[in-house]
């Protein structure tokens, strides 16, 4: 087995790609690179890649993860080789070999941090009150409307930390288990508009604190 854990960053226009389109874009880059990516067996061979939590459309990411299997050993140059053919805005930060039997990214990652940039004219006093309000209450119910259904979700449990620093908002969220708010939903609760948002980190939150995947 020749399995690697990759950390990637997503920035610029490419953040508007849906998660699926981003995966297609990454797989095409891998094919351009000529690297010996392993494929599944069976009727519809697909590349052996498994991703961590999907990046939300419109939100950048500093450290997004995927596990990738090569069919044969690769030399040290492979990371540069891949970076040379990645589309604008997608960058391989680092990669480390993974041992057999490592927990999958989706099962392991359960914590995310975001940095949200607010406009210059944001009403900080009102925002601070709204944040305080949010933390005082035990529940915060939002309505999510999709073409198929209308759902009421309590997103309070997912929010671990929310701090304002000037016109930046730092958000820490638990993933999995309780419903997680979208950035736009949180902005509505707080009564602000968002200039840009990015996911700064994904973590495994366990008994030993938060560790990187």
């Amino acid at each position, binding site marked *: 087995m020749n399995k690697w854990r990759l950390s990637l960053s997503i920035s610029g*226009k490419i953040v*508007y790609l*849906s998660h699926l389109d981003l995966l297609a*874009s990454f797989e095409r*880059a891998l094919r*351009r690179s000529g690297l010996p990516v392993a*494929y599944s067996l069976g009727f*519809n061979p697909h590349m052996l890649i498994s991703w961590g939590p999907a990046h939300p459309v419109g939100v950048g990411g500093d450290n997004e993860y995927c596990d990738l299997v090569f069919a044969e050993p690769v030399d040290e140059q492979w990371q540069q080789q891949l970076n040379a053919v990645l589309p604008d805005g997608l960058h391989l930060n680092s990669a480390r070999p993974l041992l057999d039997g490592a927990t999958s990214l989706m099962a392991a990652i359960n914590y995310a941090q975001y940095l949200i940039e607010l406009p210059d004219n944001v009403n900080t006093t009102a925002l601070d009150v709204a944040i305080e309000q949010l933390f005082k209450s035990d529940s915060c119910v939002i309505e999510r409307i999709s073409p198929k259904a209308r759902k009421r979700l309590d997103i309070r449990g997912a929010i671990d930390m929310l701090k304002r620093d000037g016109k930046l908002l730092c958000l820490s969220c638990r993933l999995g288990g309780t419903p997680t708010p979208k950035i736009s939903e949180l902005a509505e609760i707080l009564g602000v508009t968002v200039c840009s948002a990015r996911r700064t980190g994904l973590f495994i939150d366990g008994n030993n604190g938060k560790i990187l995947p």
Partner: protein
Amino acid sequence: MLTISIWPQIKKNLPDVQKPAQYIGGEFNQISKDAAKVSASMVFCFPDTYEIGMSHLGLRIIYEAINAEEDLLCERAFAPQADMEAKLRQQHLPLFSLENHRPLKEFDIVGFTLQYEMSYSNVLNMLELAEIPLIAADRMGWPLVIAGGPCVYNPEPLSDFIDVFVIGEGEQVSIELMRLVKEIKNEGGDKQELLNRALKIDGLYIPCFYKKVAAKTGVIIREPESGQVPAVVKKRLCVDLDKTVFPLKALLPNIQTVHDRLMLEIMRGCGRGCRFCQAGIIYRPIRERDPDLLREQARQLVAATGYEDIGLLSLSSADYSCISELIDMLMADHSCRNVGVALPSLRVDAFSVDLAAKVQQVRKSGLTFAPEAGSQQLRNIINKGVSEENIFAATEAAFSQGYTAIKLYFMIGLPYESNEDVVAIADLAQRVLLAGRKVKPAEIRKPLKLTLGVASFVPKPHTPFQWHGANNEEVLKEKQELLKKQLRPIKSITLNYHDITTSLLEAAFARGDSRLGKVLLRAHDKGCRFDGWKEYFRADLWAQAFVEEGLDYRNIATQTFACDDALPWQHISCGIDSDWLWQENLKAASGQPTVDCRNGDCNGCGVCANLASANVLATRAGDDHE
């Protein structure tokens, strides 16, 4: 030239629209030039969404051809979806190009491709969103608004809105026109000066030089205002495809498109001469690319894109002379890296099924065949050249190889069609299914499924059936009901058919004259757009628009022309002799066949002589072909 980007304003709206990636541009392999450093610019507009437009090969070719010239620039624009359109209108933002998010009105040329009559309302809507006056006569300065594509073989319904129509293959003539723009701008000339001098370029139809004249039948035709103006505009043609530009660093769309694969164009034209088929006439003669060149192009394309499928594009890929050899070469080069080959257009015969099996060694999804008519008599009338044996050979081969779902395409409303011919569709489908069950491998448990796509025939200009009217609403309805009744008891056959009003409107705009411009304008004012999309199509608004102009789309769609009647599109020529089309129409009436001219037997359609060209068939080194 101004170089303002409205990206910051567009970006603000992206969180609130569906599939925002369709508005961002910046795709891998995008060509982005500095507009200030080129001499002439064009924005290529596809009057439908990004997902559909980015699957269009013509866009890719023109984009490549223009941008390969250092002094010229081509960017892209698509129709925004309803949510984005609402934002643009609310915020008074103009429609923009994807490369640099520049307003369309800042380009020298705004060029539309007309692939489908039901996209005409989108052309007007895009012009309006671009803040460009819709009527050509109202536009004093730049940009020049041009249009090309298959629908320009009857340009009249749009002739009030478009300054210049490009007839035929656009890769060379676009550049000639842009160079003329460059020249005129350098001299400080205006658009009228440009139009005057554009008369010297072959393949351009410039409506303002033609007067509208009522023919005996009441149909409006076009006649040149003066002797300097060509009475008939002949299409442009690339005689040697191997020497034309082909995009080898293909753009990778940001979102999944309808045909999301590599596009390798293996040939243009088709010699079969199906009498209903416009593409089979207007793209003549047959021109095949050299297989070794295609092999090299495929290598470069795969390396430059990383695509997982190579689509072999043409009107009928199994007809390509070296198709087996080409597929073998492509598979040898790419299958080890899990890059597959796709054949989007299959013939109805066993050979095609073998080809399909060759390329789809792993996935047995589904196959599609188009017998077009249910009875042999009607297939002879339309010169489909497919026998019942061919149909059974193809479907039995497919079922015996493990395919469990087959789609069959048919038409109703063809000339000389009787109700028996319609019933024959249902009958043929049932027999195909029964035969399939007999040959189906025992180990496959999944029941066989047939899907019938039954379109209503739309007579198109420049075909042997151009003189025939479409069936009227009642007759089409009756034929659809007849099919439904026949097939209702059979669970394994699914019947899909087309909306009749949409087909009749399509027929009206395919065959109508310049009076339709006013109807189109009214429909646009009432809010018609995306008429090819079921969820947006407003039959009621279209009906009102026609009533208000005192026209009836049903009459235009169903009108029959006599041999010597003037036709609204008679000033446009695709190089085919009109006498030959009439002869073909006569042969249809008696069901006489006309053979494919690729085998050497010339049928005398006239295209080779009229356009100084010939069929070009591919051979491989070592072949004994002459």
